[in-house]
């Protein structure tokens, strides 16, 4: 499962732009993860503050 650490997230939208599944949506300060997430981990790599993690 992809988890968002909301205490870290700076709601920049970079992860939304790289997600190949279009599974992320930034609602102002709230990052939403949809059921389309493939848990590929691409977004976790680029988060500038390390707010994203794929957990088993």
């Amino acid at each position, binding site marked *: 499962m992809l988890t968002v650490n909301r205490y870290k997230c*700076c*709601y*920049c*939208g*970079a*992860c*939304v*732009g*790289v*997600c*190949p599944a*279009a599974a*992320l*949506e*930034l*609602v*102002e300060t709230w990052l939403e993860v949809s059921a389309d997430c493939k848990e590929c981990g*691409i977004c*976790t*790599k*680029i*988060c*500038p*503050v*390390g707010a*994203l*993690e794929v957990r088993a």
Partner: protein
Amino acid sequence: MSMKCDVVVVGAGPGGSMTAKTAAAAGLKVVMLEKRQEIGDPVRCAEGVGKRVFCQMVKPEPDWIATEVKGARIYAPDGSSIVMSEDKGGSEVGYVLERKVFDRGLAMEAARAGAKVLVKTRALGLRMKDGVPCGVSALRIGEPLQIEAPLIIGADGVESKVGRWAGIDTTLPLKDIEICAQFLVSDPKIDDQYTEFFLGNTIAPAGYAWSFPKGEKLANVGLGILGSRSKPGEATRLLCAFMKSHFPNGKVVEMVVGGDPCSGPIESTTADGVMLVGDAARQTDPLTGGGILNAMQAGIIAGEVAAKALAAGDLSKAGLKEYEDRWRADIGRHQARSYEFKEFFVKLSDKDLNQLIGSLSKEDISKMDLRGMLRVLFKLNPKLLWELRHLVV
């Protein structure tokens, strides 16, 4: 609720506002949606723009500009530096803006030209009729809003969805996005007159660090690294290290993070009833990451083409071809060139970077533009730059 108009612009950044302003001034009924409750905030930008091109497009209000700079100084990894002068060289610098004020100001200009601006209104998807977009569904302050319009402009930035909704895949591969972190820093060490660029694979792998002054010893100090060289939290970690080595006494009063497309021109920025503008169309300069001016320029073109296409009654992809042609002839051409430089630049070792910058130390490049400087670089380092010879003529 529902409403009807000629053009819906999604996103009220510089790209969206210029599109809305141009289209409204041409007499079209324009609605511009912005999902944030405050336009321009939070900022995702170092705020540098070339003065000349900027002033060709807008008459800046004094409070849009934080400071005006003289030129750019570039540091090699070994600490040696060269200076390029503003009036010729760094067309990327000139003004450092106050984007919170500027973005809102530009949206206000669009509103004054006649566009309806809706804030805290998020586009959720395209409305379709017979397979062709006929408007957008949105959520306005949490309530559903249906907008009927034959033309939709996606100016929704790096996180753009409009393109994907219309079948254009704008996903950025990790090698085509710069991941950035930035602090607004107060420090007596800041050079108020020059934008500064710091190169080096330890400082910012396949990117650079910067200091863009905002007046009175205040500056946007940040860095960008290539997505393919990033790992979780790396941009912020590297920025903290950079602060320690370069501005150890700097006081941080604001934090910014963000992704900046550096893909070069993408295959398509139009679909039936849809045009993409600015970061949504990945129209940033791949080498510098500058995207404000390109977004504004593309917005003007999109606004003009919108008026023509509506008058002609053809909003199909073919009817919007003029938009593709015009931005590609100008912005796209520069982007393609810049992309080749970027692809080369990201491979350079610190030794290469030191050699290149060191080779210029005895040359007078203060009056040169970027092209002139590259020509001199090529003459002095033919072996290292052999791959780029076709670009330096």
